[in-house]
């Protein structure tokens, strides 16, 4: 696959309740138990070829006694409920990932970082090898912009894990489109060319940057549209100025 959408992050004030609510709303199942330090994600697989929504939030309120900019951002964008806070693209080789890192004058967060605390870990201890760019103090998500991932081994990719059975569960058949704010030109400037934008199933609504809706196909029923405000609707991206790696 060329540049593609890998997953979408949905920030939540209470990931258990948000996953339960989304499951009841859409019939999409989810799996649980992945965490990184003070945060955890519940994963909603979207079907082939391998996309998912991660419902993410702070699950250790002890950690809030030592506040930092990232945690404050998460609190600020979830105070009024769920907000889409990240579009996560994917590439198929480390070379492609390094090219994006170079474009952003940044580095790669390597998949083989030996520190377990640097990776999301599943409840059984498994760590999915995952590299990403750009790196830095701030995630581009705070600017309403996507980052890019590369998985050296997709065998246990998050999109392919079994979900908890839920009542009236539907079978997702794949991501159809993602509605984002801004314009194609703005995204092309960030990614380094319109050719990248044209590879992605995006709809632009001209609103503030970030993800506003996700459409998923489903067996034996109409497409499912999951609509939540973008994080930039709660905290303007202008708060964080220009992106710096």
């Amino acid at each position, binding site marked *: 696959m060329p540049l593609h959408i890998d997953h979408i992050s949905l920030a939540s*004030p*209470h*990931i*258990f*309740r948000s*996953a*339960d609510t989304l499951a009841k709303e859409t019939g999409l199942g*989810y*799996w*649980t*138990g992945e*965490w990184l330090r*003070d945060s*955890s994600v*519940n994963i909603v697989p979207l079907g082939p070829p391998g996309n998912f929504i991660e419902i993410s*939030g*702070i*699950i*250790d*309120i*002890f*950690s*809030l006694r030592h506040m930092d900019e990232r945690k404050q951002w998460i*609190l600020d964008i*979830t*105070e009024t409920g769920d907000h889409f806070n990240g579009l996560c693209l994917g590439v198929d080789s480390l070379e492609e990932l390094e090219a994006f890192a170079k474009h952003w004058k940044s580095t790669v967060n390597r998949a083989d970082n030996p520190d377990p605390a640097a990776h999301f*870990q*599943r*409840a*059984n*201890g498994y760590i999915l090898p995952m590299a990403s760019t750009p790196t830095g103090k701030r995630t581009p998500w705070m600017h309403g912009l996507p980052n890019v991932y590369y998985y050296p081994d997709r065998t246990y990719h998050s999109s392919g894990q079994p979900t*908890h*059975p*839920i*009542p009236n569960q539907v079978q997702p058949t794949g991501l159809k489109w993602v509605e984002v704010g801004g314009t194609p030109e703005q995204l092309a400037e960030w990614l380094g060319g319109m050719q990248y934008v044209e590879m992605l199933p995006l709809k632009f609504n001209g609103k503030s940057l970030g993800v506003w809706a996700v459409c998923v196909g489903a067996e034996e029923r109409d497409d499912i549209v999951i609509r939540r405000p973008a994080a930039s609707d709660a905290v303007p991206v202008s708060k964080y100025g220009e992106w710096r790696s």
Partner: protein
Amino acid sequence: MLDHIHLGCANVYATAFDLMNATKLGHYDGGFTRDVAVGQKTMPLGGGVYLEIESIVDPFATADTARRPWWYTRAVALKSAVFSGVCLRVNTMDELNDIAKRHGGTTRLNMRTPPDGPQVKFWEAPSGVADPWRTGKPNWCCWESRLYAHPSGQPVVNAPGLAQPAGVTWIEMGGTKAEMQAWLGQNPDDLKMTFNGKSPGVYAVGVKTDSGDVEIRRPPAAPPARS
């Protein structure tokens, strides 16, 4: 009989994972409770008993410190997971109502939303009086006809090298046997309780497994009794 033991902590994910590594006892996601924004991991101990591991997972619902679970303050102060209480099980609501009445209270429905469907429900007592756990005493519960869905019997995550739990072999409590017998109305020996004479609460649990006995020892959440 013993039903479950509660462990309050800061991070339910890290606590459950670290405990699994230390004991080789598996766990699974228990979901969340309704009245306080708490998430749960459940660790079956065998013999129809489970360990309930919980932490606050909603920074907003519990911004009001008065709404935080009572064990939170103790866990913060000790920087450790703490044993918050023991719940015993009776078979019928008549028995539970009798216990509630004997302690001057009533019964109440406890509900939890698991990730996989219908809510988990059990009745507990005594309610409407001071919470027994806060003074290191057990309370009681009844699952009515829902024991088929008891948390001790649900599958755990597929972590490598897990042991098969075969039941609680002892539970170390503070206080004295006489004090406990007066509260329970039954011989604590029936519940495999041992007593260390310290301030009330749970101090440790011994669990038999197919690869040896394990001991889970944490501070009790109940504050030391004033002399």
